[in-house]
């Protein structure tokens, strides 16, 4: 998208809100330098308060993820109902969220249509949703989009709970955890979606947490780039929920750091084709 599309004519400039002017002047589009988590930008849709709980790991994950997009002016985000929806509706990108769990199917149709209508142009389709949306209600749609090799990047914001509906167990909740709808504790372990991504056809997959913003930012950037040219990609980021996991809102990063030592160790997987592609476009060096 050209910035001209949102730039007002001189005659209209004075009637537009400060927010809109800020979007045009400082918004995420057509930045000269690639987006990274080092510079979240000053634009409103990322820095302003939004209706999440204090200390929300999901909102932090979304900020970091959006700041890391390689080409926000050409990015469309598909979501699903849940906590992530609140921050994503404030982003200045096309964002769609309709039925629960359908995100990778919607993204499939959209991405294919954009290939038909805008051949040769960069059109990044990014799915950014919670753990319930990916691992439970949307698991078959997620997996099938990977089996088919769709050019979509999928980011799971894993807070290990259904937050928006009031703290119910999800498939990504750890075994034994007592939550609503798991009154005697969860009876089975976290669904191994990260491992499934590798066997289901993802060209790239990363497991990380919001306590490692650089690693997460690089993962989102690479996931989007590889999805453009190679195949489906998956980033699973731990975004702990102080409200429902019952810890102090000031301890979100600490909670994320803790699990990095145990079951949320950083892991990056990529196929040879994905690696060769990153190397070719000069994107491989910065991670090391």
């Amino acid at each position: 998208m050209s910035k001209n599309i949102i730039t007002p004519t001189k005659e209209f400039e004075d009637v537009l809100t400060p927010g809109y002017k800020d979007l045009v002047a400082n918004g995420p589009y057509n930045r000269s330098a690639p987006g990274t988590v080092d510079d979240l930008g000053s634009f409103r849709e990322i820095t302003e308060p939004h209706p999440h709980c204090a200390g929300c790991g999901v909102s932090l994950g979304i900020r970091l993820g959006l700041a890391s997009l390689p080409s926000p002016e050409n990015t469309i985000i598909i979501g699903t109902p849940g906590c992530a929806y609140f921050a994503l509706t404030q982003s200045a990108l096309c964002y769609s969220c309709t039925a629960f769990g359908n995100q990778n199917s919607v993204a499939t149709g959209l991405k294919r249509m954009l290939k038909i209508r805008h051949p040769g142009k960069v059109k990044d389709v990014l799915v950014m949703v919670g753990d319930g949306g990916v691992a439970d209600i949307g698991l078959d749609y997620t997996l099938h989009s990977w089996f088919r090799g769709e050019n979509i990047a999928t980011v799971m914001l894993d807070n290990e709970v259904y937050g928006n509906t009031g703290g119910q167990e999800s498939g990504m909740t750890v075994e034994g955890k007592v939550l609503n709808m798991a009154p005697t504790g969860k009876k089975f372990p976290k669904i191994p979606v990260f491992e499934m991504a590798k066997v289901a056809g993802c060209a790239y997959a990363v497991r990380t947490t919001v306590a490692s913003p650089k690693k997460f930012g690089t993962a989102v950037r690479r996931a989007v780039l590889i999805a453009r040219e190679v195949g489906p990609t998956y980033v699973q980021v731990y975004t702990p929920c102080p409200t429902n996991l019952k810890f102090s809102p000031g301890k979100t990063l600490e909670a994320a750091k803790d699990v990095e030592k145990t079951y949320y160790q950083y892991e990056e997987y990529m196929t040879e084709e994905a690696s060769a592609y990153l190397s070719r476009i000069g994107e491989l060096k910065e991670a090391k």
Partner: protein
Amino acid sequence: MSMSANINAAASAGPNQKAVSPEELLLKAPRERAFMTGSEAVAEAVRRAGIDMAIAYPITPQSESMHLTGDLFAQGYIKDYYRAENEFAVMAAVHGASLGGGRVFTATSGPGTLRAMEMFPVWAGSRQPIVCAFMCRGVALPPSIQPENIEMAFLLDTGMIMFHAENSQDFFDFILAGYAIAEQSEVHLPVGVFADGFFVTHTREVIMLPPDNIKLGEYNPDIAPIPPFDMEHAPMQMVRDPLLNKCNFVSYAASASWHQEVLAAAERARKHINKYMGGLIEVENPGADIMIIASGIAVSQSRDAIRTMAERDGITAGLIKVKSIRPFPAAEIAQATARASAIVIPEFNAGGWLAREVMGTIDNNSRVIAGPRVFGGMSLPGEVIIDVIKKAAR
């Protein structure tokens, strides 16, 4: 990458069709006779519809039409096509493809319709001109693959425009008219074109087709009430909960007015239905004392009954064929039944949804005989309708 290659291969094999207006394709182009099934008629409509993308999932009795649609993709008539994992995935992907600003097609039947249910109001709420063919069949009361149209009852309030085809000819015409009507700037709603499974899909009969070297011109998404999701336009949000979804009057009002606008858009479709489909209803023997009201295959069975009665018994009955179920032709039906003393409503479902619709909109419901009804795959011989009419005449 493999997918892009497929698209390119299909495009290069593309047939040389001339893009024409819907008026030309539907109303003016000369037609020739063909002897084919309803499924083949659907494919002939798709061939002429200038479709960007179609998505399929098998279910009886829909499958043949989507096989043939796949063949059309292989021949270059459609730019992309794939088999998805289930009907909810199909309807979600069709939604996504339509968000991208192109023309899309799919079809389903009975249980597939119900599995995909959540997406139909999403299409309407997103103001998408998607055309979906429904080859109606039983659902699960008990399990049945046989024809009946109970699924239409479930879809009456999804915001979708609904047309009910009597035969293969209607099926062909209504699908193409569906695009012409759905893509009007002031309408922009999904259109469901319904036909009774097997009775239409698997039945071979004569239909009249315009030439296959013409097709509908390209869809222009810039005239849509909602711009396409392509980052060629200013970004926007399409979310199921308008504004932020918690409790405040502004969000309720936004949701309500959006819903009202969906209903209003369907009302605005009436003049286009009149233009492209010759009206929301058709009336035979207007002014008859006994009027049959029917839609879909029940219209054909009623025609058979009316002819037999006229030839054999000297009884004249009238017929109102309801082509548009949404918007519903309440005023037209009220007018056409104003002088009738008995109104017979034969249906191919157990619920009697058409009778309910009619009785909710006309005066003096004691005139209405809400039947006969068959379901579970039963045929409805004209004699059964004649029986009911004769009882009414007494």
